[in-house]
């Protein structure tokens, strides 16, 4: 489904990604782990099409289509979804208006009619329930005044609504207490399906207790330095990133759960 070959990317002339190679097939769940500053978030942003990052080399294809040639909105319509590490607050645009505009943009792309307000409301309420968000959140400004956990649940709710082919979750576990983590994990597990791939970017292994990945990759210094099965995450938790010869001060502070 997703094929990344020798991907290099820079921000403000500083190279962050230095040759990423990654193949993800439909139905698979991949986790990318790594210390802070290794390029995890950059990879997510580059895949989603953030113009602040410049791709200097390499290629990325989604089901054979050159992703790097597409605008951000076109990538989304082709099935890329990024759950943001820091979801943006947009006062003045209601969550409902935002979500309905997004859903209808996707439908238009597929040649389908707009969803009417009543139909949409029904659907939106259902997905809200799935991530334990009160439907009153639909009426509020996008992420406006949401707690950290509510923002993350709002991201997963959007993924459930938009049904992407590839969902990229950027540090979706950060800032969540254990209950919220479980709700978010349940939402992500509900997304798992044979025709969808999930790419989880995380610093800690605790999320992987709830969403069990098929593959784990360690990203350091802009390259994937080790890949393995889920046992690699457990090994990392036990031994720390230092085991692989990388320094990470934050990893030392990782909570024991």
């Amino acid at each position, binding site marked *: 489904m997703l094929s990344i070959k020798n991907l290099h990317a820079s921000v403000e002339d500083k190279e962050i990604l230095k040759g990423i190679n990654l193949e993800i097939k439909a139905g698979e769940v991949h986790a990318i782990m790594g210390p802070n500053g290794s390029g995890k978030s950059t990879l997510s942003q580059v895949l*989603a*099409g*953030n*113009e*602040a990052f410049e791709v200097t080399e390499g290629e990325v294809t989604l089901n054979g289509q050159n992703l790097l040639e597409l*605008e*951000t*909105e076109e*990538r*989304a*319509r082709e099935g890329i*979804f*990024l759950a*943001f590490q820091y*979801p*943006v607050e*947009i*006062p*003045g*645009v209601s969550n409902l*208006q*935002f979500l309905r*505009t*997004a859903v209808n*943009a*996707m439908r238009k*792309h597929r040649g389908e009619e707009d969803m009417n307000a009543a139909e949409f409301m029904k659907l939106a309420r259902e997905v809200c329930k799935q991530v334990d968000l009160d439907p009153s959140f639909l009426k509020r*400004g*996008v992420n406006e005044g949401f707690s950290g956990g509510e923002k993350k649940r709002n991201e997963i709710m*959007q993924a459930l609504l*938009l049904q992407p082919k590839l969902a990229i979750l950027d540090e979706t576990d950060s800032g969540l207490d254990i209950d919220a983590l479980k709700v978010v994990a349940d939402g992500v597990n509900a997304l798992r399906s044979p025709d969808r791939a999930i790419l989880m970017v995380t610093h800690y292994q605790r999320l992987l207790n709830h969403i069990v990945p098929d593959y784990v990759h360690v990203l350091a210094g802009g390259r994937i330095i080790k890949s393995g099965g889920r046992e690699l995450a457990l090994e990392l938790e036990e031994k720390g990133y230092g085991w692989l010869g990388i320094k990470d001060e934050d990893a030392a502070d990782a909570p024991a759960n």
Partner: protein
Amino acid sequence: MKPAPTLSSAFLHPAGQSLPQPLLALRKQRAAALLGMPLPTRKTENWKYSARHLKLADDMAISLPAEGKTGTSLAVPGYKVVFLNGVMLPEASEFPDLDGITITSFSDLDEQEARELAGRLDHTLTPQSVQLAQLNSARFEDGLLIRLQPDAVLDQPLYIIHEVNADASGSAFPRIFVDAGRHSRLTLVEEFISSGSNGQAQVLVNAVTEFCLDEGAHLTSIRLDMEGDSIQHIGATGVRQQRNSRFESHCVGFGGALRRHDLQVRLEGEGAECKLNGVVVAQGAQHYDNHTNIEHVVGHCNSEETYRNIAADQAHVVFNGRIHIHPDAQKSNAEMNNKNLLLSNGAEIDTKPELEIYADDVKCAHGATIGQLDKTSVFYLVSRGIGRREAHVLLTMAFINELVAQIPVPAVRETAQTRLNQFFEATFQEA
């Protein structure tokens, strides 16, 4: 150095003579005072950014005839008064038939009433700051006096449609005076629109509306400036408030060749409060200039002012918000907030909060910002498949939604929303 150009005497020719004597005398007096008035230049402080948009050609001086057909105004439900080219059309109007409210043309006032009115006109406005707008007092053909008896409550909004016909060059001078008695209630909606435009005609609209609120009166004023591009509009709204009265203003303005509106509020009785909301959008080569002035004359009054401006293309928007707290006005509470959004590199917004505080026990807060659409927000929206253009529209609307939502009359809110949508459609046209 050549002398500054003065107001052409052509603009001071008296016209319609249907007014009662005291009002004619007032007009003559005002005309004499304006004779030889230097026109504002960029060195004139309160016209600094707008003087270059002011182009008063002599053929604009003549009053446009109060005849012809009115356009969209007939669609308005409920009570309405229709002005065409500055003069009221009784046949197109629908007056409320309620105890406690009278709506009278200036020309229908008897000598005694006219004398009383002549003594009150212009007293809500500070003459030196609205000199040009006061041309209205030298030129109004007629006017409308709205009187509310104590405790009178108008059950529906009263619409005033100011339509001007832009087919021929000339000017219009609509004038309104609202006298709200103790504990009376009124919502007044003023819509400024224009019909016809051959592109050549030069039209000046010089509208003045005054509100006097007696003790405990509650008045809401909604003003939609939606005239065509070619119109030069110089208007003023003056307000005087007595004890415990409340004045609420909602202005939505669309730019044009020249738009200048002065809003002046005097809080003269303890416990009086005002809330002033304003939205301005301008695109192309349009211009809009809002000057507001709130005078806290006595203590224990509240004022709250929120203005949002949006300038696209090469448009130019000006906001000058003055708050003046007089020496005895202790325990005044004043808040002013102005946010501005620039949608292109060629657009210009000039904003100036102006606070003069002469009392020591007051709360006075102000804030002004100028910014562009937030890139992170745009990325967030487009990352969900929303088109870039639509994302820009959503975010621009978001900037003013809060103020539009506060317009208390749903039908007016819808009109404003429709016009704003048209504005955004035009601003964010697909390249």
